[in-house]
């Protein structure tokens, strides 16, 4: 597949920070997630792609065209910033139609495109509202509709879930996936959240201190992180697997090495599993519990969090567990202690 967006040898410095020799290729029509901790340079990279500044070195290629020297309005790349930045003086319709107005699209076409997008995103009922009367999730949808209305070659989403509450996050990720599938537009989505990345990405690029440290499929980046990536994202449990069988309402997920994880899901085929460290129970013995999943390992790292203790357990899989300080001392655990990590099928979130 040809590149939708390619960044070649991009470098730029601001005195206190620099993007260094960034190379990136995002396949046309794919969903790429740029993952990195706060201050890693992901937003600056996105701004280079949209044309907020001209990098000191390097090129940006969109659909085979070098756009490095073009102003933002000639690149056909829509930018949806972190806090959405809707135009407050315009209604939802005004916002969505803005780019079409700027391009002189006839009214009939404008109306049709707007209606289609508002329907697709489920916000037709908000058409005459002003941004100040919208919730975070609604603003997010309007921002996306505005970005898509101009039929861009690529859409850049900067932390699209940063201003929505936890309850709205999974529904937004669902529609991001649905809208991407329907429109087929190339998407670059910036986030610091590895769960978010694993949920929507076709490919993930990890950026740290202004350098790309790993690029690959979500399973590769999350299951086989490079040393640098592992040091950034090791507080969560993400396991790639394949739903091989269904038993009643339980799915049996093969995670490799002959190990099966039970989870509650309707999904089939390749999946990414997420288990919160707080939901993992640790024991020194293979006791019988109501938790259906069990992984064996040894304690590889211990971090004191005050009333709780976070442990990295290495063995059948790398598992992070958070247990109370009291349990930790009662079990007399140490680095190298052999333990079992248990978690319920209902604690396994299938992304």
């Amino acid at each position, binding site marked *: 597949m040809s590149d939708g967006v390619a960044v070649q040898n991009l470098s730029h410095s601001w005195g206190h920070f620099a993007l260094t020799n960034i190379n990136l290729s995002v396949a046309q029509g794919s969903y790429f997630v740029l993952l990195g901790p706060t201050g890693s340079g992901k937003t600056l990279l996105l701004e280079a792609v949209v044309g*907020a500044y001209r990098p000191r070195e390097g090129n940006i290629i969109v659909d085979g065209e070098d756009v490095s020297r073009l102003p933002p309005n000639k690149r056909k790349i829509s930018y949806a910033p972190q806090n959405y930045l809707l135009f407050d003086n315009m209604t939802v319709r005004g916002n969505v139609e803005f780019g079409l107005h700027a391009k002189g699209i006839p009214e009939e076409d404008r109306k049709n495109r707007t209606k289609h997008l508002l329907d697709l995103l489920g916000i037709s009922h908000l058409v005459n509202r002003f941004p100040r009367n919208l919730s975070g999730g609604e603003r997010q949808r309007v921002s996306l509709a505005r970005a898509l209305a101009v039929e861009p070659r690529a859409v850049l989403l900067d932390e699209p879930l940063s201003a929505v509450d936890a309850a709205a996050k999974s529904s937004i990720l669902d529609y991001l996936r649905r809208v991407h599938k329907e429109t087929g537009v190339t998407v670059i989505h910036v986030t610091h959240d590895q769960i978010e990345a694993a949920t929507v990405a076709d490919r993930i690029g990890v950026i740290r201190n202004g350098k790309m440290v790993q690029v690959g499929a979500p399973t590769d980046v999350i299951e086989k992180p490079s040393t640098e990536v592992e040091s950034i994202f090791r507080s969560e449990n993400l396991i790639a697997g394949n739903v091989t069988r269904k038993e009643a309402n339980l799915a049996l997920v093969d995670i490799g090495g002959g190990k099966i994880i039970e989870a509650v899901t309707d999904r089939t085929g390749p999946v990414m599993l997420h288990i919160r460290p707080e939901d993992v129970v640790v024991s020194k013995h293979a006791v019988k519990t109501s938790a259906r999943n069990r992984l064996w390992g040894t304690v590889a790292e211990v971090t004191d969090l005050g009333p709780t203790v976070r442990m990295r357990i290495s063995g059948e899989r790398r598992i992070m567990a958070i247990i109370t300080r009291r349990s930790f001392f009662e079990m007399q655990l140490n680095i190298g202690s052999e333990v079992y990590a248990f978690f319920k099928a209902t604690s396994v979130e299938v992304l």
Partner: protein
Amino acid sequence: MRISPGFPTRFVFVLSALSGVLFFLLFSPVVNLIGTSSLAGIVLAMNSSEAVSAIVLTVYASALTALVAVLLGVPLGYLLGKYHFPGRSLIDSVIEIPLMIPHTVAGIALITIFGSAQLVGAFFNGYGIKMTNNVLGIVLTLVFVSATYTVKQVEEAIRSMDPKLELVSRSLGASSTFTFVKVTLPHIWRSIVSGAILTWARASSEVGALFIMAYYPPVASILIWNLYAGYGLRESISNGVVLSPGAVNVAALMIFINLAIFVLFKLIQRKREKRNE
């Protein structure tokens, strides 16, 4: 008066007392001036062609000044607020100079460049355009002493606006001009109006620099000074001939007209804000 629960009332009392002193200083001369004038005196001022032309000229020249300040000050305020470039701090300081120097000094400075024998003045004089002692001279002077207010208001408004708002617009295919008109202007228009009102108000009160650059035709402030210096505060009538409509009466009339214009501006501004809500 509404006092927040738990707020130290003695502290509020001290604040109120100090505020009261300033309020008295600001308010009492204006009220007293209006009280000192009389309705008959104001009517006399209104019937004086000399006073009416001076007031009309003041309103006209101040409005023209505000317009020039908007036309030239918005671009400068935008550049200073949006971009970081070498010399920006210097330009920022230079535009504040007119606010810091005595107004007679401003007049002298202006005459050294726009006087008919000086650098710019001589050049335009060659084409028959005089830059002193006419409306052009008045407006030049008023722009010098008051346009800074518009520039500063716009600069602050641009600084407080998220620069990514314009980037979003540009990424949607909008040109710089389209973005400025449709996105930037709606965000800064209140500041432009505030800046224009401040410029207009400051311009209509100028006297020092005008003494030197454009003493004639006299604006209201110069006429009031002339009346005061020649005839004192009150009207002067000799054998039925009005020698002076009275400095205090022309001043009171000027206050009423300025207040009326100010209130009108505020009403228009409020109406527009309500329409946008």
